[in-house]
């Protein structure tokens, strides 16, 4: 805490690349694959999740000393569900197109691992200011990841980007990229490319997750050893 400003800066930038929730921590996979058929939808989802994350981080950071340890998870989930409902109503009222596109994936923000993981790992241990920065960083990282996946799928799958036609004369779009298999495929290749070019391998990252659903880090051992 010697240099508060640099700490704040590192908290903010942490989520953008170094600990990118989707590309590095592999949290929140369901929306990352489901809504990224278009870059625009990816951004919509990213902003909605960032809003919920910021709200829940603020509230959880404020109540972190009041909530008894044993009931903290149900309390966190209730707070997150509250903010998700707010987002749902706001989108329904002001951006009905996006609301229709994203469908049930908006209420499903509640069970997005990223939000519970940040509540458990960060907001419950840090003050409000840092928690807001953390939420913005992580939410930003989530949005960037969705934008990357969405762009790859939209360009390859429909030959457009943000509604602009790009590849009209160059190649015929491969429809499979906007179908469900293309989601897995695009994500797999993006993670492989990041592995290739990044010094920080996925395996070296800190294995920790608030929701116990640390997908990539989960070796299956937490399940298998009980048998």
């Amino acid at each position, binding site marked *: 805490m010697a240099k508060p400003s640099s700490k704040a800066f590192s908290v903010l930038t942490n989520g953008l690349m170094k600990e990118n929730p989707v590309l590095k921590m*592999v*949290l929140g*996979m*369901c*929306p990352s*694959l*489901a809504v990224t058929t278009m870059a625009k939808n990816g951004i919509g989802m990213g902003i909605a999740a960032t809003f919920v994350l910021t709200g829940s981080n603020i509230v959880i950071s404020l109540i972190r000393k009041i909530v008894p340890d044993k009931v903290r998870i*149900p309390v966190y*989930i*209730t707070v997150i*569900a*509250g903010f*998700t*409902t707010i987002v*749902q*109503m706001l989108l329904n009222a002001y951006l009905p197109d996006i609301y229709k596109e994203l469908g*049930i994936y908006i*209420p*499903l923000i*509640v*069970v*997005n*691992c990223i939000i*519970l993981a940040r509540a458990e790992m960060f907001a419950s241990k840090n003050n409000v200011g840092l928690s807001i920065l953390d939420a913005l960083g992580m939410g930003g990282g989530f949005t960037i990841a969705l934008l990357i996946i969405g762009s790859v799928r939209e360009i390859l799958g429909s030959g457009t980007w943000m509604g602009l036609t790009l590849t009209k004369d160059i190649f015929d779009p491969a429809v*499979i990229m906007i*179908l*469900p*298999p*293309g*989601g*897995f*495929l695009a*994500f*797999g*290749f993006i*993670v*492989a*490319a990041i*592995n*290739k070019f990044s010094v920080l391998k*996925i*395996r070296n990252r800190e294995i920790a997750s608030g*929701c*116990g*659903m*640390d*997908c*990539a880090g*989960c*070796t*299956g051992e*937490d*399940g*298998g050893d*009980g*048998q």
Partner: protein
Amino acid sequence: MRDIILIALGAILVDNFVLSRFLGICPFLGVSKKSSTAVGMGGAVIFVMTLSSAVTWTVYKYLLEPNELGYLQTIVFILVIAALVQFVEIVLKRFIPALFKALGIYLPLITTNCAVLGSALLNIERNYSLLHAVVFGLSAGVGFTIALILFSGIREKMEFCDIPAAFKGLPITLIAAALVSVAFFGFKGLFGI
């Protein structure tokens, strides 16, 4: 009868929760390393999903809808599911210890499984009756389990393959999932849906 079969086959094969709706990806990638864990997780999901479909449907139709509280469904459903999972855990522990031993470790993970909340929300969105909702929950769970077990078999084989370093771990898993998803895509033609 026909509509029930259509709902069941649709949820198991055509619109498989994992492979075409992307619900429940975390457990799908997380616990599919070994077939035995896949079976355990699948069993737990089928059990909870069937129960939660019935309970959330009842809560919505008899508690939320008459009072015009439909907008609270997200909060209410997630709390109902969380409470239900706890309750199932206690009941199983007390009365069916064998089943608890088999499913116990997977149960707490299910609260944050988006497939469970997803099926509850879809039941309401599609305006299903109670019977349809239960059939849908059960079949979605079965579909999830089939995908999980199939995929765990593939991953067990993949352990011994020589994979380029950059693709080791998550990327090759995702690409394998893409291939399984392509296979399931073939079922789209089943009813001309």
